[in-house]
Protein backbone atom coordinates (compact mmCIF):
# COMPACT_ATOMS: atom_id res chain seq x y z
CA UNK A 1 0.00 0.00 0.00
CA UNK A 2 2.66 2.39 1.10
CA UNK A 3 5.01 1.28 -1.63
CA UNK A 4 2.22 1.71 -4.18
CA UNK A 5 1.63 5.39 -3.40
CA UNK A 6 5.35 6.03 -3.39
CA UNK A 7 5.57 4.40 -6.77
CA UNK A 8 2.80 6.49 -8.26
CA UNK A 9 4.25 9.68 -6.80
CA UNK A 10 7.59 8.77 -8.33
CA UNK A 11 5.89 8.07 -11.60
CA UNK A 12 4.18 11.43 -11.39
CA UNK A 13 7.51 13.15 -10.85
CA UNK A 14 9.04 11.14 -13.64
CA UNK A 15 6.13 11.95 -15.82
CA UNK A 16 6.45 15.63 -15.09
CA UNK A 17 10.17 15.51 -15.76
CA UNK A 18 9.64 13.79 -19.09
CA UNK A 19 7.00 16.31 -20.04
CA UNK A 20 9.35 19.11 -19.21
CA UNK A 21 12.05 17.53 -21.31
CA UNK A 22 9.77 16.92 -24.27
CA UNK A 23 8.54 20.48 -24.16
CA UNK A 24 12.11 21.71 -23.91
CA UNK A 25 13.20 19.70 -26.90
CA UNK A 26 10.18 20.73 -28.92
CA UNK A 27 10.79 24.43 -28.40
CA UNK A 28 14.55 24.41 -28.65
CA UNK A 29 14.88 22.06 -31.63
CA UNK A 30 14.01 24.39 -34.49
CA UNK A 31 16.13 27.39 -33.46
CA UNK A 32 19.00 25.02 -32.74
CA UNK A 33 18.59 23.42 -36.14
CA UNK A 34 18.60 26.87 -37.71
CA UNK A 35 21.79 27.60 -35.80
CA UNK A 36 23.44 24.36 -36.83
CA UNK A 37 22.71 24.99 -40.50
CA UNK A 38 23.22 28.72 -40.77
CA UNK A 39 26.05 29.10 -38.33
CA UNK A 40 27.96 25.90 -37.69
CA UNK A 41 27.78 24.45 -41.16
CA UNK A 42 28.49 27.75 -42.85
CA UNK A 43 31.41 28.66 -40.64
CA UNK A 44 32.91 25.21 -40.67
CA UNK A 45 33.98 25.82 -44.26
CA UNK A 46 35.56 29.11 -43.26
CA UNK A 47 37.65 27.49 -40.57
CA UNK A 48 38.85 24.99 -43.13
CA UNK A 49 39.72 27.94 -45.34
CA UNK A 50 42.12 29.23 -42.69
CA UNK A 51 44.23 26.16 -43.29
CA UNK A 52 44.07 26.38 -47.06
CA UNK A 53 45.27 28.70 -49.73
CA UNK A 54 44.52 29.32 -53.36
CA UNK A 55 47.22 28.74 -55.91
CA UNK A 56 47.30 29.54 -59.63
CA UNK A 57 46.73 26.62 -61.98
CA UNK A 58 49.61 24.59 -63.30
CA UNK A 59 50.74 24.85 -66.90
CA UNK A 60 47.91 24.03 -69.28
CA UNK A 61 45.19 23.99 -66.59
CA UNK A 62 42.56 26.52 -65.68
CA UNK A 63 40.97 27.37 -62.35
CA UNK A 64 42.54 28.24 -59.03
CA UNK A 65 43.25 25.31 -56.76
CA UNK A 66 42.92 25.09 -53.00
CA UNK A 67 45.84 23.43 -51.27
CA UNK A 68 46.63 22.71 -47.65
CA UNK A 69 48.55 25.66 -46.24
CA UNK A 70 49.62 24.38 -42.86
CA UNK A 71 50.02 27.37 -40.51
CA UNK A 72 51.19 29.79 -43.22
CA UNK A 73 48.01 31.84 -42.99
CA UNK A 74 48.32 32.06 -39.24
CA UNK A 75 51.88 33.29 -39.48
CA UNK A 76 50.89 36.14 -41.79
CA UNK A 77 47.84 36.91 -39.68
CA UNK A 78 49.88 37.02 -36.51
CA UNK A 79 52.40 39.45 -37.94
CA UNK A 80 49.53 41.65 -39.14
CA UNK A 81 48.24 41.71 -35.60
CA UNK A 82 51.64 42.58 -34.18
CA UNK A 83 52.16 45.34 -36.74
CA UNK A 84 48.65 46.66 -36.28
CA UNK A 85 49.28 48.15 -32.85
CA UNK A 86 47.94 51.54 -33.84
CA UNK A 87 44.69 50.03 -35.05
CA UNK A 88 44.40 48.15 -31.78
CA UNK A 89 45.13 51.42 -29.98
CA UNK A 90 42.24 53.05 -31.86
CA UNK A 91 39.97 50.14 -30.98
CA UNK A 92 40.97 50.52 -27.33
CA UNK A 93 40.32 54.27 -27.45
CA UNK A 94 36.81 53.58 -28.64
CA UNK A 95 36.18 50.89 -26.04
CA UNK A 96 37.51 53.21 -23.33
CA UNK A 97 35.20 56.01 -24.48
CA UNK A 98 32.28 53.64 -24.51
CA UNK A 99 33.03 52.16 -21.10
CA UNK A 100 34.09 55.29 -19.24
CA UNK A 101 32.05 58.00 -20.94
CA UNK A 102 29.22 56.48 -22.97
CA UNK A 103 27.90 53.88 -20.55
CA UNK A 104 28.21 55.98 -17.34
CA UNK A 105 26.51 58.93 -19.04
CA UNK A 106 23.80 56.60 -20.29
CA UNK A 107 23.35 55.35 -16.71
CA UNK A 108 23.03 58.87 -15.35
CA UNK A 109 20.67 59.92 -18.14
CA UNK A 110 18.58 56.82 -17.53
CA UNK A 111 18.41 57.60 -13.84
CA UNK A 112 17.29 61.15 -14.64
CA UNK A 113 14.54 59.80 -16.86
CA UNK A 114 13.61 57.05 -14.44
CA UNK A 115 13.21 59.61 -11.67
CA UNK A 116 10.99 61.64 -14.04
CA UNK A 117 12.82 64.90 -13.55
CA UNK A 118 11.97 67.93 -15.68
CA UNK A 119 11.44 67.18 -19.41
CA UNK A 120 12.49 63.56 -18.99
CA UNK A 121 9.92 62.46 -21.57
CA UNK A 122 11.39 64.77 -24.18
CA UNK A 123 14.95 63.76 -23.38
CA UNK A 124 14.11 60.12 -23.75
CA UNK A 125 12.79 60.80 -27.23
CA UNK A 126 15.81 62.89 -28.17
CA UNK A 127 18.29 60.37 -26.83
CA UNK A 128 16.61 57.70 -28.91
CA UNK A 129 16.55 59.81 -32.07
CA UNK A 130 19.90 58.65 -33.50
CA UNK A 131 18.60 55.08 -33.30
CA UNK A 132 15.45 55.99 -35.18
CA UNK A 133 17.18 57.70 -38.03
CA UNK A 134 19.53 55.68 -40.18
CA UNK A 135 23.20 55.87 -39.41
CA UNK A 136 23.78 56.69 -43.09
CA UNK A 137 21.78 59.85 -42.54
CA UNK A 138 23.38 60.89 -39.27
CA UNK A 139 26.86 60.24 -40.57
CA UNK A 140 26.16 62.31 -43.66
CA UNK A 141 24.71 65.26 -41.73
CA UNK A 142 27.35 65.07 -39.02
CA UNK A 143 30.11 65.15 -41.60
CA UNK A 144 28.72 68.33 -43.13
CA UNK A 145 28.40 69.90 -39.69
CA UNK A 146 31.86 68.87 -38.53
CA UNK A 147 33.54 70.04 -41.73
CA UNK A 148 31.70 72.66 -43.72
CA UNK A 149 29.56 74.24 -41.02
CA UNK A 150 32.41 74.24 -38.52
CA UNK A 151 34.72 75.90 -41.05
CA UNK A 152 32.07 78.47 -41.91
CA UNK A 153 31.28 79.33 -38.29
CA UNK A 154 34.83 79.41 -36.94
CA UNK A 155 36.49 80.58 -40.18
CA UNK A 156 39.11 77.86 -39.96
CA UNK A 157 41.21 76.39 -42.75
CA UNK A 158 40.25 72.80 -41.92
CA UNK A 159 37.16 71.04 -40.70
CA UNK A 160 37.09 68.76 -37.67
CA UNK A 161 37.16 65.63 -39.80
CA UNK A 162 39.44 66.96 -42.52
CA UNK A 163 41.97 68.41 -40.08
CA UNK A 164 45.60 67.34 -40.51
CA UNK A 165 45.77 66.82 -36.72
CA UNK A 166 45.12 63.22 -35.77
CA UNK A 167 43.83 64.18 -32.32
CA UNK A 168 41.13 66.44 -33.73
CA UNK A 169 39.90 63.83 -36.16
CA UNK A 170 40.02 60.97 -33.67
CA UNK A 171 38.32 63.10 -31.02
CA UNK A 172 35.55 63.98 -33.45
CA UNK A 173 34.97 60.36 -34.37
CA UNK A 174 34.94 59.31 -30.71
CA UNK A 175 32.54 62.12 -29.93
CA UNK A 176 30.26 61.04 -32.75
CA UNK A 177 30.20 57.45 -31.57
CA UNK A 178 29.31 58.48 -28.02
CA UNK A 179 26.86 61.08 -29.31
CA UNK A 180 24.73 58.54 -31.15
CA UNK A 181 25.20 55.68 -28.69
CA UNK A 182 22.64 56.54 -26.01
CA UNK A 183 19.43 55.28 -27.58
CA UNK A 184 19.59 51.56 -26.94
CA UNK A 185 21.57 51.84 -23.71
CA UNK A 186 19.21 54.37 -22.14
CA UNK A 187 16.20 52.42 -23.30
CA UNK A 188 17.45 49.16 -21.79
CA UNK A 189 18.66 50.83 -18.60
CA UNK A 190 15.41 52.72 -17.98
CA UNK A 191 13.56 49.53 -18.84
CA UNK A 192 15.53 47.69 -16.18
CA UNK A 193 15.19 50.53 -13.69
CA UNK A 194 11.43 50.71 -13.98
CA UNK A 195 11.35 47.00 -13.35
CA UNK A 196 12.75 47.60 -9.86
CA UNK A 197 10.17 46.83 -7.22
CA UNK A 198 8.91 50.15 -5.87
CA UNK A 199 8.69 48.78 -2.36
CA UNK A 200 12.48 48.44 -2.35
CA UNK A 201 12.85 52.06 -3.42
CA UNK A 202 10.30 53.21 -0.87
CA UNK A 203 12.03 51.25 1.85
CA UNK A 204 15.35 52.89 1.04
CA UNK A 205 13.73 56.32 1.04
CA UNK A 206 12.20 55.64 4.42
CA UNK A 207 15.69 54.72 5.61
CA UNK A 208 16.67 58.28 4.64
CA UNK A 209 18.67 57.49 1.53
CA UNK A 210 19.27 60.50 -0.69
CA UNK A 211 19.32 60.39 -4.46
CA UNK A 212 22.97 59.44 -4.76
CA UNK A 213 22.58 56.73 -2.16
CA UNK A 214 19.51 55.42 -3.89
CA UNK A 215 21.40 55.34 -7.17
CA UNK A 216 24.39 53.54 -5.71
CA UNK A 217 22.71 51.23 -3.25
CA UNK A 218 19.40 50.45 -4.91
CA UNK A 219 19.30 51.26 -8.61
CA UNK A 220 22.77 50.17 -9.64
CA UNK A 221 22.67 46.76 -7.94
CA UNK A 222 19.22 46.07 -9.31
CA UNK A 223 20.24 46.70 -12.91
CA UNK A 224 23.75 45.33 -12.57
CA UNK A 225 22.90 42.36 -14.73
CA UNK A 226 21.81 44.55 -17.63
CA UNK A 227 24.75 46.89 -17.12
CA UNK A 228 27.36 44.15 -17.10
CA UNK A 229 25.80 42.67 -20.22
CA UNK A 230 26.45 45.95 -22.02
CA UNK A 231 30.01 46.07 -20.73
CA UNK A 232 30.62 42.56 -21.99
CA UNK A 233 29.11 43.43 -25.35
CA UNK A 234 31.39 46.46 -25.65
CA UNK A 235 34.42 44.34 -24.92
CA UNK A 236 33.32 41.63 -27.32
CA UNK A 237 33.29 44.31 -30.01
CA UNK A 238 36.97 45.07 -29.42
CA UNK A 239 38.07 43.63 -32.76
CA UNK A 240 34.87 44.03 -34.73
CA UNK A 241 33.84 47.59 -33.84
CA UNK A 242 34.03 49.77 -36.96
CA UNK A 243 33.40 53.11 -35.21
CA UNK A 244 31.20 54.03 -38.18
CA UNK A 245 34.44 54.65 -40.03
CA UNK A 246 33.26 52.99 -43.21
CA UNK A 247 30.20 55.21 -43.33
CA UNK A 248 32.40 58.28 -42.79
CA UNK A 249 35.42 57.57 -44.95
CA UNK A 250 34.52 54.57 -47.08
CA UNK A 251 37.83 52.69 -47.30
CA UNK A 252 39.99 55.77 -46.68
CA UNK A 253 40.03 56.10 -42.89
CA UNK A 254 43.85 55.76 -42.86
CA UNK A 255 45.31 56.53 -39.41
CA UNK A 256 41.88 56.46 -37.78
CA UNK A 257 41.39 52.78 -38.66
CA UNK A 258 40.27 50.41 -35.97
CA UNK A 259 40.90 46.72 -36.19
CA UNK A 260 37.27 45.92 -36.95
CA UNK A 261 37.34 48.46 -39.74
CA UNK A 262 40.54 46.98 -41.14
CA UNK A 263 39.04 43.49 -41.21
CA UNK A 264 35.95 44.73 -43.00
CA UNK A 265 37.84 46.73 -45.60
CA UNK A 266 40.32 43.91 -46.16
CA UNK A 267 37.49 41.49 -46.85
CA UNK A 268 36.00 43.88 -49.41
CA UNK A 269 39.31 43.74 -51.33
CA UNK A 270 38.45 40.16 -52.33
CA UNK A 271 42.01 38.95 -52.69
CA UNK A 272 42.41 35.23 -53.31
CA UNK A 273 45.98 34.74 -54.45
CA UNK A 274 48.92 35.78 -52.37
CA UNK A 275 51.52 37.98 -54.03
CA UNK A 276 54.77 38.99 -52.37
CA UNK A 277 54.64 42.60 -51.23
CA UNK A 278 50.85 42.84 -51.42
CA UNK A 279 49.61 44.89 -48.49
CA UNK A 280 46.15 43.36 -48.09
CA UNK A 281 45.46 39.90 -46.71
CA UNK A 282 43.92 37.09 -48.73
CA UNK A 283 40.63 35.49 -47.71
CA UNK A 284 42.45 32.54 -46.19
CA UNK A 285 44.71 34.81 -44.14
CA UNK A 286 41.70 36.81 -43.00
CA UNK A 287 40.02 33.65 -41.79
CA UNK A 288 43.14 32.78 -39.83
CA UNK A 289 43.26 36.28 -38.37
CA UNK A 290 39.64 35.91 -37.31
CA UNK A 291 40.46 32.73 -35.44
CA UNK A 292 43.43 34.35 -33.67
CA UNK A 293 41.32 37.35 -32.64
CA UNK A 294 38.64 35.06 -31.29
CA UNK A 295 41.21 33.30 -29.20
CA UNK A 296 42.26 36.66 -27.74
CA UNK A 297 38.79 38.09 -27.17
CA UNK A 298 37.19 35.04 -25.62
CA UNK A 299 39.13 34.96 -22.32
CA UNK A 300 38.84 38.74 -21.93
CA UNK A 301 35.08 38.60 -22.30
CA UNK A 302 34.57 35.56 -20.09
CA UNK A 303 36.95 36.94 -17.49
CA UNK A 304 35.17 40.27 -17.36
CA UNK A 305 31.83 38.57 -16.98
CA UNK A 306 33.14 36.54 -14.10
CA UNK A 307 34.70 39.60 -12.47
CA UNK A 308 31.58 41.68 -12.83
CA UNK A 309 29.29 39.07 -11.38
CA UNK A 310 31.68 38.30 -8.52
CA UNK A 311 32.58 41.83 -7.51
CA UNK A 312 29.50 43.72 -8.64
CA UNK A 313 27.13 45.20 -6.03
CA UNK A 314 24.75 42.58 -4.82
CA UNK A 315 21.03 43.08 -5.17
CA UNK A 316 20.23 41.60 -1.77
Amino acid sequence: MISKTKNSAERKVMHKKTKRLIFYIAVVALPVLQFVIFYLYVNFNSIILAFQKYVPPAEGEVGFKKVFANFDNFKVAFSTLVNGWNMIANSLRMIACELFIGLPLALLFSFYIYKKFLLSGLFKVMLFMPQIISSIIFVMLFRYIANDVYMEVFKTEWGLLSSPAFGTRMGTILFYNVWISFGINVMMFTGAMTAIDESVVEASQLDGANLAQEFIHVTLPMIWGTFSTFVVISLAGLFTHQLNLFAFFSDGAADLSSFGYYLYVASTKKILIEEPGLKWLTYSQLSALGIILTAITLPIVLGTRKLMSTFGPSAE
Partner: protein
Amino acid sequence: MKKVENRKKSNVAEKIAVIILGALLIAYSLSIILVLLWGLLSSLKSENDFMNNLLGLPTINNPEWFDRINDPDSSYKTLFWLENYVLVIRRFNFPASTSFFVGNREVTHTTENNFFGMLFNSVVYAFGNGFVQAIIPAIMAYMCAKYRYKFSKVLYITVIVVMTLPIVGAYPSELTLLRNLGLYDTWYGNFIQRCSFTGMYFLVFYEFFKGVPDTYSEAAEIDGASQFAVMFRIYIPLASKIIGSVFLIRFIFFWNDFSSIELYMPTHPTLAYFIYALGAGKKISSDMTTNPRKIAACMILALPTLILFLLLHNKVMGSMTLGGIKG
Protein backbone atom coordinates in the same frame (compact mmCIF):
# COMPACT_ATOMS: atom_id res chain seq x y z
CA MET B 1 21.36 68.45 14.37
CA LYS B 2 24.49 67.67 12.36
CA LYS B 3 22.63 64.97 10.52
CA VAL B 4 19.98 67.43 9.40
CA GLU B 5 22.63 69.87 8.19
CA ASN B 6 24.34 67.14 6.22
CA ARG B 7 21.02 66.22 4.82
CA LYS B 8 20.45 69.83 3.67
CA LYS B 9 23.91 70.03 2.16
CA SER B 10 23.40 66.86 0.26
CA ASN B 11 20.05 68.15 -0.90
CA VAL B 12 21.73 71.20 -2.43
CA ALA B 13 24.42 69.07 -4.02
CA GLU B 14 21.74 66.76 -5.29
CA LYS B 15 19.86 69.64 -6.90
CA ILE B 16 23.00 70.97 -8.54
CA ALA B 17 23.79 67.53 -9.91
CA VAL B 18 20.30 67.17 -11.30
CA ILE B 19 20.49 70.63 -12.86
CA ILE B 20 23.83 69.85 -14.49
CA LEU B 21 22.45 66.59 -15.82
CA GLY B 22 19.38 68.43 -17.11
CA ALA B 23 21.55 71.04 -18.82
CA LEU B 24 23.58 68.31 -20.47
CA LEU B 25 20.41 66.71 -21.73
CA ILE B 26 19.12 70.02 -23.05
CA ALA B 27 22.37 70.59 -24.91
CA TYR B 28 22.13 67.08 -26.30
CA SER B 29 18.55 67.53 -27.45
CA LEU B 30 19.40 70.85 -29.08
CA SER B 31 22.34 69.31 -30.94
CA ILE B 32 20.08 66.63 -32.41
CA ILE B 33 17.35 69.09 -33.35
CA LEU B 34 19.77 71.57 -34.91
CA VAL B 35 21.48 68.90 -37.00
CA LEU B 36 18.15 67.68 -38.37
CA LEU B 37 16.88 71.20 -38.92
CA TRP B 38 20.02 72.11 -40.80
CA GLY B 39 19.51 69.01 -42.94
CA LEU B 40 15.92 69.99 -43.70
CA LEU B 41 16.92 73.52 -44.63
CA SER B 42 19.79 72.35 -46.80
CA SER B 43 17.56 69.91 -48.66
CA LEU B 44 15.53 72.91 -49.83
CA LYS B 45 18.50 74.67 -51.41
CA SER B 46 20.07 74.50 -54.82
CA GLU B 47 23.61 73.14 -54.96
CA ASN B 48 25.11 76.58 -55.56
CA ASP B 49 23.06 78.15 -52.80
CA PHE B 50 24.10 75.35 -50.47
CA MET B 51 27.79 75.95 -51.19
CA ASN B 52 27.64 79.75 -51.06
CA ASN B 53 25.24 80.04 -48.16
CA LEU B 54 25.78 77.12 -45.84
CA LEU B 55 23.98 78.44 -42.80
CA GLY B 56 21.38 80.89 -44.11
CA LEU B 57 17.86 80.45 -45.41
CA PRO B 58 17.44 79.52 -49.09
CA THR B 59 18.21 82.46 -51.42
CA ILE B 60 15.53 83.21 -53.99
CA ASN B 61 16.29 86.67 -55.23
CA ASN B 62 19.28 88.66 -56.38
CA PRO B 63 19.34 91.68 -58.69
CA GLU B 64 22.39 90.23 -60.45
CA TRP B 65 20.41 87.30 -61.86
CA PHE B 66 18.87 87.23 -65.34
CA ASP B 67 16.23 84.78 -64.21
CA ARG B 68 15.40 84.22 -60.57
CA ILE B 69 13.73 80.87 -61.17
CA ASN B 70 16.30 79.16 -63.36
CA ASP B 71 19.48 80.79 -62.12
CA PRO B 72 21.80 78.09 -60.72
CA ASP B 73 22.44 80.24 -57.65
CA SER B 74 18.72 80.50 -56.91
CA SER B 75 16.85 78.13 -54.61
CA TYR B 76 13.49 79.10 -56.07
CA LYS B 77 12.71 75.72 -57.62
CA THR B 78 14.11 73.70 -54.77
CA LEU B 79 12.21 75.72 -52.17
CA PHE B 80 8.82 76.31 -53.79
CA TRP B 81 8.63 73.32 -56.11
CA LEU B 82 10.56 71.02 -53.77
CA GLU B 83 12.61 70.12 -56.80
CA ASN B 84 15.17 68.07 -54.86
CA TYR B 85 12.44 65.94 -53.30
CA VAL B 86 10.46 65.56 -56.50
CA LEU B 87 13.58 64.48 -58.34
CA VAL B 88 14.49 61.99 -55.67
CA ILE B 89 11.01 60.43 -55.70
CA ARG B 90 10.85 60.39 -59.48
CA ARG B 91 14.30 58.86 -59.73
CA PHE B 92 13.48 56.31 -57.10
CA ASN B 93 13.15 53.74 -59.79
CA PHE B 94 15.32 50.80 -59.30
CA PRO B 95 15.44 47.87 -61.71
CA ALA B 96 17.02 44.98 -59.86
CA SER B 97 18.02 41.65 -61.26
CA THR B 98 20.02 38.69 -60.12
CA SER B 99 20.79 35.33 -61.60
CA PHE B 100 22.11 32.26 -59.84
CA PHE B 101 22.20 28.48 -59.79
CA VAL B 102 20.02 26.22 -57.68
CA GLY B 103 21.92 23.00 -58.15
CA ASN B 104 22.20 22.85 -61.94
CA ARG B 105 19.10 24.88 -62.64
CA GLU B 106 19.57 28.54 -63.46
CA VAL B 107 17.18 30.99 -61.85
CA THR B 108 16.78 34.66 -62.65
CA HIS B 109 14.89 37.18 -60.54
CA THR B 110 14.06 40.57 -61.94
CA THR B 111 12.06 43.33 -60.30
CA GLU B 112 11.22 46.88 -61.21
CA ASN B 113 10.90 48.94 -58.08
CA ASN B 114 9.50 52.41 -57.84
CA PHE B 115 9.54 54.56 -54.74
CA PHE B 116 6.44 52.98 -53.25
CA GLY B 117 7.62 49.46 -54.00
CA MET B 118 10.77 50.11 -52.06
CA LEU B 119 8.80 51.70 -49.26
CA PHE B 120 6.73 48.51 -49.10
CA ASN B 121 9.86 46.37 -49.05
CA SER B 122 11.25 48.46 -46.22
CA VAL B 123 8.08 47.99 -44.17
CA VAL B 124 7.86 44.21 -44.63
CA TYR B 125 11.56 43.74 -44.12
CA ALA B 126 11.70 45.79 -40.95
CA PHE B 127 8.46 44.55 -39.37
CA GLY B 128 8.97 40.87 -40.15
CA ASN B 129 12.61 40.70 -39.17
CA GLY B 130 12.05 42.86 -36.11
CA PHE B 131 9.32 40.52 -34.87
CA VAL B 132 11.29 37.34 -35.49
CA GLN B 133 14.43 38.71 -33.90
CA ALA B 134 12.60 39.85 -30.79
CA ILE B 135 10.57 36.73 -30.07
CA ILE B 136 13.05 33.95 -30.90
CA PRO B 137 15.83 35.11 -28.54
CA ALA B 138 13.20 35.71 -25.84
CA ILE B 139 11.87 32.16 -26.08
CA MET B 140 15.33 30.61 -26.22
CA ALA B 141 16.58 32.71 -23.32
CA TYR B 142 13.56 31.67 -21.31
CA MET B 143 14.25 28.01 -22.06
CA CYS B 144 17.90 28.35 -21.07
CA ALA B 145 17.19 30.31 -17.93
CA LYS B 146 14.37 28.21 -16.60
CA TYR B 147 15.19 24.71 -17.81
CA ARG B 148 18.45 23.93 -16.12
CA TYR B 149 19.65 21.15 -18.37
CA LYS B 150 23.30 20.82 -19.30
CA PHE B 151 22.27 21.64 -22.85
CA SER B 152 21.03 25.05 -21.66
CA LYS B 153 24.49 25.82 -20.37
CA VAL B 154 25.88 24.72 -23.71
CA LEU B 155 23.49 27.06 -25.51
CA TYR B 156 24.42 29.93 -23.23
CA ILE B 157 28.13 29.46 -23.83
CA THR B 158 27.45 29.04 -27.54
CA VAL B 159 25.84 32.47 -27.61
CA ILE B 160 28.84 34.03 -25.88
CA VAL B 161 31.24 32.31 -28.24
CA VAL B 162 29.26 33.32 -31.32
CA MET B 163 29.21 36.92 -30.20
CA THR B 164 32.95 37.03 -29.81
CA LEU B 165 33.82 35.20 -33.03
CA PRO B 166 34.63 37.79 -35.67
CA ILE B 167 34.35 35.36 -38.58
CA VAL B 168 35.38 36.77 -41.91
CA GLY B 169 34.68 35.46 -45.37
CA ALA B 170 31.88 33.00 -44.65
CA TYR B 171 29.66 34.59 -47.27
CA PRO B 172 30.39 32.26 -50.20
CA SER B 173 29.39 29.11 -48.34
CA GLU B 174 26.39 30.87 -46.82
CA LEU B 175 25.15 32.07 -50.20
CA THR B 176 25.63 28.68 -51.80
CA LEU B 177 23.64 27.09 -49.00
CA LEU B 178 20.76 29.58 -49.32
CA ARG B 179 20.62 29.08 -53.06
CA ASN B 180 20.60 25.32 -52.90
CA LEU B 181 17.80 25.38 -50.34
CA GLY B 182 15.80 27.73 -52.57
CA LEU B 183 15.84 30.41 -49.88
CA TYR B 184 18.02 32.95 -51.61
CA ASP B 185 16.41 36.26 -52.58
CA THR B 186 12.97 35.33 -51.19
CA TRP B 187 10.95 36.71 -48.31
CA TYR B 188 10.48 33.38 -46.54
CA GLY B 189 14.15 32.57 -46.94
CA ASN B 190 14.98 35.89 -45.37
CA PHE B 191 12.72 35.22 -42.39
CA ILE B 192 14.07 31.70 -41.86
CA GLN B 193 17.58 33.04 -42.00
CA ARG B 194 16.66 35.65 -39.39
CA CYS B 195 15.28 33.09 -36.93
CA SER B 196 18.54 33.18 -35.08
CA PHE B 197 18.60 33.23 -31.29
CA THR B 198 22.23 34.21 -30.82
CA GLY B 199 23.24 37.78 -30.13
CA MET B 200 23.16 40.31 -27.35
CA TYR B 201 19.40 40.26 -26.83
CA PHE B 202 19.53 36.63 -25.87
CA LEU B 203 21.79 37.70 -23.00
CA VAL B 204 19.47 40.55 -22.05
CA PHE B 205 16.48 38.22 -21.93
CA TYR B 206 18.54 35.61 -20.14
CA GLU B 207 19.48 38.03 -17.40
CA PHE B 208 15.86 39.09 -17.16
CA PHE B 209 14.43 35.58 -16.84
CA LYS B 210 17.18 34.62 -14.39
CA GLY B 211 16.01 37.49 -12.23
CA VAL B 212 12.38 36.39 -12.27
CA PRO B 213 11.72 33.97 -9.38
CA ASP B 214 10.68 30.39 -10.15
CA THR B 215 7.83 30.73 -7.68
CA TYR B 216 5.47 31.82 -10.44
CA SER B 217 5.95 28.73 -12.51
CA GLU B 218 5.92 26.44 -9.51
CA ALA B 219 2.61 27.93 -8.41
CA ALA B 220 1.19 27.70 -11.89
CA GLU B 221 2.32 24.14 -12.37
CA ILE B 222 0.70 23.14 -9.10
CA ASP B 223 -2.47 24.71 -10.51
CA GLY B 224 -2.08 22.36 -13.45
CA ALA B 225 -0.86 24.78 -16.10
CA SER B 226 1.04 23.22 -19.00
CA GLN B 227 4.66 24.11 -19.78
CA PHE B 228 3.44 25.97 -22.82
CA ALA B 229 0.97 27.99 -20.79
CA VAL B 230 3.60 28.83 -18.19
CA MET B 231 5.86 30.17 -20.88
CA PHE B 232 3.34 32.10 -22.95
CA ARG B 233 0.88 33.13 -20.24
CA ILE B 234 3.30 34.04 -17.48
CA TYR B 235 6.91 34.55 -18.45
CA ILE B 236 6.80 35.90 -21.98
CA PRO B 237 4.20 38.55 -21.00
CA LEU B 238 6.48 39.52 -18.12
CA ALA B 239 9.15 40.23 -20.71
CA SER B 240 6.77 41.96 -23.10
CA LYS B 241 8.25 45.37 -22.38
CA ILE B 242 11.73 44.16 -23.26
CA ILE B 243 10.39 42.23 -26.25
CA GLY B 244 8.73 45.45 -27.38
CA SER B 245 11.97 47.36 -26.97
CA VAL B 246 13.95 44.72 -28.82
CA PHE B 247 11.36 44.66 -31.57
CA LEU B 248 11.61 48.41 -31.92
CA ILE B 249 15.39 48.29 -31.94
CA ARG B 250 15.48 45.52 -34.54
CA PHE B 251 12.73 47.18 -36.56
CA ILE B 252 14.80 50.31 -36.80
CA PHE B 253 17.94 48.34 -37.51
CA PHE B 254 16.32 46.59 -40.45
CA TRP B 255 14.66 49.75 -41.67
CA ASN B 256 18.10 51.25 -41.94
CA ASP B 257 19.90 48.11 -43.09
CA PHE B 258 21.34 47.97 -46.58
CA SER B 259 24.28 45.60 -46.58
CA SER B 260 22.23 42.43 -45.98
CA ILE B 261 19.90 43.42 -48.80
CA GLU B 262 22.86 43.60 -51.11
CA LEU B 263 23.96 40.14 -50.03
CA TYR B 264 20.75 38.17 -49.60
CA MET B 265 17.82 40.02 -51.17
CA PRO B 266 19.21 41.78 -54.25
CA THR B 267 15.86 42.08 -56.03
CA HIS B 268 14.00 43.37 -52.98
CA PRO B 269 15.63 46.77 -52.54
CA THR B 270 14.54 48.84 -49.57
CA LEU B 271 14.76 52.61 -49.27
CA ALA B 272 17.90 52.42 -47.15
CA TYR B 273 19.47 50.21 -49.78
CA PHE B 274 18.62 52.79 -52.38
CA ILE B 275 20.34 55.56 -50.42
CA TYR B 276 23.35 53.31 -50.21
CA ALA B 277 23.13 52.58 -53.93
CA LEU B 278 23.07 56.31 -54.61
CA GLY B 279 26.41 56.62 -52.88
CA ALA B 280 27.86 53.48 -54.43
CA GLY B 281 27.15 54.60 -57.99
CA LYS B 282 24.66 51.90 -58.92
CA LYS B 283 22.31 52.70 -61.76
CA ILE B 284 21.83 56.27 -60.79
CA SER B 285 21.37 59.37 -62.79
CA SER B 286 24.29 61.72 -62.32
CA ASP B 287 22.12 64.66 -61.30
CA MET B 288 21.52 62.88 -58.01
CA THR B 289 24.98 63.67 -56.81
CA THR B 290 24.48 67.23 -55.54
CA ASN B 291 24.74 67.80 -51.82
CA PRO B 292 21.15 69.03 -51.25
CA ARG B 293 19.66 66.11 -53.19
CA LYS B 294 21.64 63.61 -51.19
CA ILE B 295 20.32 65.29 -48.06
CA ALA B 296 16.78 65.32 -49.47
CA ALA B 297 16.98 61.56 -50.10
CA CYS B 298 18.10 61.15 -46.50
CA MET B 299 15.19 63.24 -45.24
CA ILE B 300 12.76 61.04 -47.15
CA LEU B 301 14.28 57.91 -45.64
CA ALA B 302 14.15 59.45 -42.16
CA LEU B 303 10.56 60.64 -42.36
CA PRO B 304 8.61 57.35 -41.93
CA THR B 305 10.58 56.16 -38.90
CA LEU B 306 10.40 59.61 -37.45
CA ILE B 307 6.62 59.78 -37.81
CA LEU B 308 6.17 56.23 -36.56
CA PHE B 309 8.33 56.98 -33.60
CA LEU B 310 6.65 60.27 -32.76
CA LEU B 311 3.26 58.52 -32.95
CA LEU B 312 4.26 55.49 -30.93
CA HIS B 313 6.93 56.75 -28.58
CA ASN B 314 4.48 57.56 -25.80
CA LYS B 315 3.06 54.08 -25.90
CA VAL B 316 6.35 52.28 -26.34
CA MET B 317 8.36 54.29 -23.90
CA GLY B 318 5.45 54.98 -21.57
CA SER B 319 4.75 51.30 -21.21
CA MET B 320 8.39 50.70 -20.52
CA THR B 321 8.37 53.06 -17.57
CA LEU B 322 5.29 51.48 -16.03
CA GLY B 323 7.31 48.79 -14.34
CA GLY B 324 8.00 45.18 -15.05
CA ILE B 325 6.83 42.35 -12.93
CA LYS B 326 4.25 44.20 -10.90
CA GLY B 327 1.15 42.63 -12.27
